[in-house]
């Protein structure tokens, strides 16, 4: 049987495919382009911030840049990248299914994504919006820029996200191969499952909030206009009701990648399967109740501040449990450091730091100083770039042989990992300090005293950009000239490695035996040796 890449030919066989693997690849390519575009926006922003005054880029353009950067990175890249890209490719294989539950819907979700992306792009081309990715009213309702097409674009992208999530939920519930119970699945599936729950329940709220902003902006309905009985703070509640859970849409899949990578390269079962599975669900559900921590200085009631403060602390515990479980998994393992694992180590450090600074800003009184300063910018880039982007790169390397059937150069891959890590820390560590000094975010110009740290950050962003370009080069070269990868180049026990690389069109040639995805004890059917750490 031929593999899924060669099974059919022609552009149409890709764009109209119902094969979850091809749809996954389509999403990976599309989101990769989005990363490139969003990254270029970032590099221009950093260029402008190299000096205190507006030199190369004026204020108006800068304000558009950070808006488009945020919108592109969040909705075009990060939210679909791991779930709709890797999730689509791997989830059915990992549960021994032939495809997702609704293959046509799956394709529709990609088409909807493309439509949303095109509308957003159209908005960018006719001038872009300058509201920030948060679209706060009343500013967003009155901005002279092209906010409406961007709102419509994001609205459409949201539906793509809902459809993907719905499909995955149903797939996990109804398509598991016989013998794969809930606690026999690879943990990546749990991560995608929990992510899907958030996507399905939170995204519609975003859709409605953006629609309301659009009505305010386009038809002067004044839903949030205080003169007409509206209240702009209520918009913030609605927006963050989506956008806080959305940060877990961005990080849970990354956590799934980390679990898989660590287990494979340490050749070890996770220290506690259930701790990871349950904390994943815990994040998904409790994560819905922390949104108000973005509003501590917005004039919210002290009662809500107290509630959201403590709920943020509680949701953090789940992440910490995961971190300890990962580190514990290394214990008594047989660790081999390769590029994916190197990225995962970077993840561990940067995510813990970024997450703990999340706990710091969730400490109500401290956020009064940090809110809307570069400290927050550093916090979320530590998690989203240091955490999720790093895990995304780990995934790219880890599953590259499975998806393409080829191997990349290990040495060149490690060089890329080091470049990215160095570039990242040089870019974002200074931003914590800028935040402490009191530099507000979304500033096109700034007073002299912030100059040195900003210059450093700009230099760092070039190194980071270089690192990512290097990675792109390494993978591109491997794609055309890489050595053939066997079925299981890493010696992993997980299910996706039990079929050919690239997998055949229907995932498995012969009915496979799918049992023990983390079983690295001696013989597969010998009595496993159980010990306590």
């Amino acid at each position, binding site marked *: 049987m031929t593999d899924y890449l060669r099974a059919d030919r022609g552009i149409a066989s890709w764009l109209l495919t119902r094969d979850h693997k091809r749809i996954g690849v389509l999403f990976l390519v599309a989101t990769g382009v989005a990363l490139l575009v969003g990254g270029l926006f970032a590099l221009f922003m950093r260029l402008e911030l190299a000096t205190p005054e507006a030199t190369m880029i004026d204020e108006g353009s800068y304000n558009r840049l950070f808006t488009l950067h945020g919108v592109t990175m969040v909705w075009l890249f990060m939210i679909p990248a791991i779930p709709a890209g890797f999730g689509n490719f791997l989830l059915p294989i990992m549960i021994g299914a032939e495809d997702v539950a609704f293959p046509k819907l799956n394709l529709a979700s990609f088409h909807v994504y493309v439509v949303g992306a095109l509308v957003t792009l159209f908005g960018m081309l006719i001038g872009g919006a300058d509201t920030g990715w948060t679209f706060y009213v009343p500013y967003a309702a009155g901005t002279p820029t092209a906010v409406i097409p961007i709102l419509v674009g994001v609205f459409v992208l949201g539906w793509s996200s809902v459809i993907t999530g719905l499909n995955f939920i149903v797939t996990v519930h109804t398509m598991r191969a016989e013998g794969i119970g809930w606690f026999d699945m690879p943990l990546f599936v749990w991560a995608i499952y929990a992510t899907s729950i958030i996507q399905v329940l939170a995204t519609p709220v975003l859709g409605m909030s953006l629609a309301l902003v659009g009505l305010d902006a386009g038809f002067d309905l004044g839903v949030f206009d205080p003169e007409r009985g509206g*209240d702009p703070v209520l918009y913030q*509640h609605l927006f963050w*009701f989506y956008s806080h859970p959305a940060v877990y849409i961005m990080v849970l899949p990354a956590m799934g990648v980390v679990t898989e990578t660590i287990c494979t390269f340490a050749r070890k079962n996770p220290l506690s399967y259930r701790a990871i599975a349950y904390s994943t669900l815990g994040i998904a559900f409790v994560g*819905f109740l922390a949104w108000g921590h973005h509003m501590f200085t917005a004039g919210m009631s002290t*009662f*809500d501040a107290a509630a959201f403060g403590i709920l943020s602390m509680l949701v953090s515990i789940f992440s910490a449990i995961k971190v300890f479980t990962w580190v514990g998994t290394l214990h008594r393992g047989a660790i081999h450091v390769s590029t994916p694992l190197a990225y995962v180590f970077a993840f561990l450090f940067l995510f813990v730091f970024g997450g703990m600074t999340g706990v710091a800003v969730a400490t109500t009184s401290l956020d009064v100083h940090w809110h809307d300063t570069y400290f927050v910018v550093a916090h979320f880039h530590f998690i989203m770039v240091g955490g999720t982007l790093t895990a995304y790169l780990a995934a790219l390397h880890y599953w590259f042989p499975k998806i393409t059937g080829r191997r990349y150069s290990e040495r060149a891959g490690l060089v890329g990992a080091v470049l990215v890590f160095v570039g990242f820390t040089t870019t974002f560590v200074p931003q914590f300090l800028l935040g402490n000094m009191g530099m507000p975010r979304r500033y096109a110009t700034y007073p002299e005293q912030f100059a040195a740290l900003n210059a450093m950050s700009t230099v760092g962003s070039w190194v980071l950009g270089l690192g990512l370009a290097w990675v792109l080069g390494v993978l591109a070269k491997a794609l055309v000239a890489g050595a053939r990868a066997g079925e299981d180049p890493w010696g992993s026990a997980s299910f996706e490695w039990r079929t050919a690389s690239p997998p055949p069109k229907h995932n498995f040639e012969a009915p496979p035996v799918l049992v023990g995805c983390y079983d690295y004890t001696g013989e597969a059917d010998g009595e496993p040796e159980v010990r306590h750490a």
Partner: protein
Amino acid sequence: MKRRLHITPRTLWIAFAALLVLAAGSWASSLVPLGALAVPLGLGVAALKVAIVGLVFMDLGEHGGGVRLAAVVAPAFLALMIAFMLGDVWLR
């Protein structure tokens, strides 16, 4: 494996009648000034009606964990959203 149906056409009729009675009651009660009672009464009866629609018309009792989870979690999050927003508006 055939699913057993507990809901019969008769059950549907009974539920329908109950809905009509409740709706008529809601409407009648709105004719008298209720003061502070209007809100809890209006929403309470509505919740009761939705429960009937969910359990009988939508056959909720028959389904597996996934369906029930969806049916419970969404209203729960809606309620929490409203609670926290009121916790802001009332107490700020």
